[in-house]
């Protein structure tokens, strides 16, 4: 795949089967307070 370099990322479809524990921090609880972003939130699921 010389023309395409794929980066390791979390498989979102797989996370549909194993995620959803809700233990992660609420996004507004960190630094924004005036916008909503979830991409920078860390997953806190205990494996």
């Amino acid at each position: 795949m010389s023309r395409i370099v794929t980066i390791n990322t979390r498989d979102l479809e797989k996370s549909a089967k194993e995620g959803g524990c809700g233990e992660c921090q609420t996004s507004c609880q960190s630094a924004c307070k005036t916008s909503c972003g979830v991409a920078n939130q860390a997953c806190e699921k205990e494996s």
Partner: protein
Amino acid sequence: MIHCYKFDDKNIVLDVYSGSIHIVDDVAFKIIQMYEDSTREQIIDEVCPEFGVTEQDVDECLKDIEDLKAAGKLFAPDRYEGIAYDLKKRKWTLKALCLHVAHTCNLNCSYCFAAQGKFHGQRGLMSFETGKRAVDFLIENSGAHKNLDIDFFGGEPLMNWEVVKQIVEYARGIEKDAGKNIRFTLTTNGVNINDDVIDFCNKEMHNVVLSLDGRKEVNDHFRVDMKGNGSYDVIVPKFKKFVEKRGNKSYYMRGTYTHFNTDFVNDIKHMADLGFKELSMEPVVTSPDSPSFLTEEDMPVLMQQYEDLAHEMIKRNREGNGFTFYHYMLDLTCGPCIYKRISGCGAGTEYIAVTQWGDIYPCHQFVGDERMKLGDIYNGFTDHGKDVSYEFAQVNCYTREGCKDCWAKLYCSGGCAANAYHSGGSITDIYDYGCRLFRKRIECALAVRLSDLKDEDIYVSDSDA
């Protein structure tokens, strides 16, 4: 759905529903963009002469695309409608409180969305009894959640410092028996920081958010005391001491930019040059009548600023003098699951704001708006409050019409309900200005992240391994 964009010399392809990211050469960039709407022959007719490649080159690239598609990493279908529907029906339990311990402030920042801490209501300080009851309310309504978050907010929470300490001590005393892990955050303007605040916060606060707008002249334009004196010279030495003693615990230097400093990257650089490394800078939230309101004419300037910020971060990272920017933090491998990406901030369902009197609102940005009041910590949600909470539960990035075709929806989860409400009148709207900035930030965040790739960052398929 894919999103293709260029940043400097990189062609970046983001596959929305798998979350995959690819860096591709010019030929693959073109072919991927043509792939869904073109035949092999059409691709060959256009790509071969444009790039001077052979049919075999194109076929090899098409094969790679097919392989990635089969692996679920490119052109992945949207399979999340069902999750979005289920989330609307879920019985939500609380996990976070924004505790308004002081509806008053010792600064008089005219751009403050909280109306100098009063939130368009009366000034007042939360009593310990109210704070204690708020902690109990959170625990009682937190269901199976183990991790709970409490943010001391205001106004200026250090104006009620002794009560903050009492609330923390109370919560620490009951969390273990309740089976909870409570994480505290304090957001402060810095004026009342002293050794006691530093020592206590560095022991108890999971995170502290320190408000500074950047350069002295920028900070002091808005962040002034009641006599109009700028706060920079008072707060910066205190912030430095605070952060220095904080060790490796989290903090954010958080600024607000407005129409008056659309060159906000200079303010971020200034904060970094002061020695602060965890930085956040947010666009102002204010009414169009305000002189600080960000205009349509500001937009191209802001877009360029976010690119400039990315370049600055890449440069400083390479020099070994990097800093983090809140909106450019992306954990590609251990980031949020799809449930989080769809459901968002949890305002009104998992996250509530509690005022100094114990009234409950969906989040800090709705405090003082009686239409949005959910109830109080003594009697719980009212019938009206339950209806409002239900409305919040119905909103996610699959129910907002404006998110339907947006490639960034699983990065922002549909955006801030308060911004949508205040700009368009409904929490089901989107705040388009904020959306455009958000999309730009994600593009730049990825560019920063992809600027320093290591071998372990690269995906190797089973067949290539």
